[in-house]
């Protein structure tokens, strides 16, 4: 009884495809972080005051902080439903390496949270009077940065998925690890807004991503094992 087999890449594609399909069927969950991003960007000028110069001075840091909190909001749900309905058990029980499966899940998660966030950020940045010259820096720093946030967020999500109320703990675990991303991301946008080169900061974000991409799934895979083994 031999069965047609799949290559490792095809397995990863199937796992990503399934998570994207799920996201498509449950659009409200995807829209949540984006809606949060939109609402805060709309409320800020009302709270701080509409003076363009004041807003423009705050915009780089504010945009990055909002994006980071939106990612934090989204990361809690990464393993939640798979844990509740037993899918996560089936992933652990399969002969596929948990490393690859969690990597695929993080990639799918970034495709439905970080990517749209980075793409709509320039539109929302207009609300905060960010100079047009800083838009490319904003998009590119968010593209790289949110990928790191998704990978690191997955570690926290995997560690806390077994707890009934893991939300606060997740923030405490993950926020310190988010700080370097925030520093380099916000500083890239700040530099671009003032007319300086920002490639250095992007390179630092790229380095963080190059570090997180191979290492974070190891931590996630172990954390999932611990959470299931209770």
């Amino acid at each position, binding site marked *: 009884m*031999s069965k047609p087999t799949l290559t490792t890449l095809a397995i990863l594609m*199937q796992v990503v495809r*399934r998570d994207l399909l799920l996201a498509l069927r449950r659009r409200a969950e995807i829209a949540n972080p984006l809606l949060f991003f939109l609402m805060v960007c709309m409320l800020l000028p009302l709270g701080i005051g509409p003076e363009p110069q004041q807003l423009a001075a705050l915009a780089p840091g504010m945009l990055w902080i909002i994006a980071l909190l939106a990612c934090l909001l989204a990361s809690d749900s990464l393993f939640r439903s798979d844990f509740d*309905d*037993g899918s996560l058990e089936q992933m652990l*029980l399969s*002969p*596929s390496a948990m490393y690859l499966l969690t990597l695929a899940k993080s990639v799918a998660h970034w495709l439905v949270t970080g990517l749209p966030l980075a793409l709509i950020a320039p539109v929302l940045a207009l609300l905060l009077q960010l100079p047009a010259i800083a838009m490319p820096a904003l998009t590119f720093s968010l593209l790289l940065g949110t990928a790191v946030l998704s990978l690191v967020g997955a570690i926290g999500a995997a560690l806390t998925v077994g707890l009934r109320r893991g939300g606060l703990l997740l923030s405490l675990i993950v926020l310190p690890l988010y700080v370097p991303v925030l520093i380099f991301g916000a500083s890239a946008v700040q530099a671009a807004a003032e007319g300086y080169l920002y490639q250095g900061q992007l390179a630092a974000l790229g380095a963080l991503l190059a570090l997180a991409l191979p290492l974070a799934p190891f931590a996630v895979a172990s954390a999932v094992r611990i959470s299931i*083994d209770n």
Partner: protein
Amino acid sequence: MSCERDDALLFAPVSFTLAGGDIVQLEGANGVGKTSLLRAIGGLSSRLCGELFWRGAPLSRQRAEFAAATVYLGHAIGLKVALSARENLQWWAALRGIDARAAIAPALDRVGLIGYEDSPCYQLSAGQQRRVSLARLFLSAAILWILDEPFTAIDRNGVAELESWLAAHADAGGAVLLTTHQQLSLPHALRRVALQPERLREMSTHE
């Protein structure tokens, strides 16, 4: 072997072997640790006191081979209700590296769900969802089936069908380890392993 919880053994140590052609039913009262034992054997839990061997060698050193040769269906059936039966099974087969596109329709036919391949699982009843999860048995070539309460929510005809699948699997040289409170009437020999509660004996008194 036995399982521990909060530093106490759940049940009096048992030892059994499973060979091709065997159907073994774990018996015991609620809470005695049947599921805990199955989870430990499946590799989901580390709360096992004792040793597991697979084909003569310690199981812990060959988890991947064991996983490829085993289908484990637990209490939580691992279906996404937003996805259709076909999408759920395709994902599950992909986890095991199987290209199941051609095999899914026949598998769903065998569990009596022909015509439901593409409806989202939230439209299916609990019993039908359980049948979708049982269709996995026909997608993989696993020789060991570990089934935790597989008869939950299954109707009377379904119970008889599942019993015949178990017997056919064992006749073909496979092995089945299951828990159930159903009175099984299998057309195949059945071995029972009873788990007895281990009351309040601390681990330390064993050492």
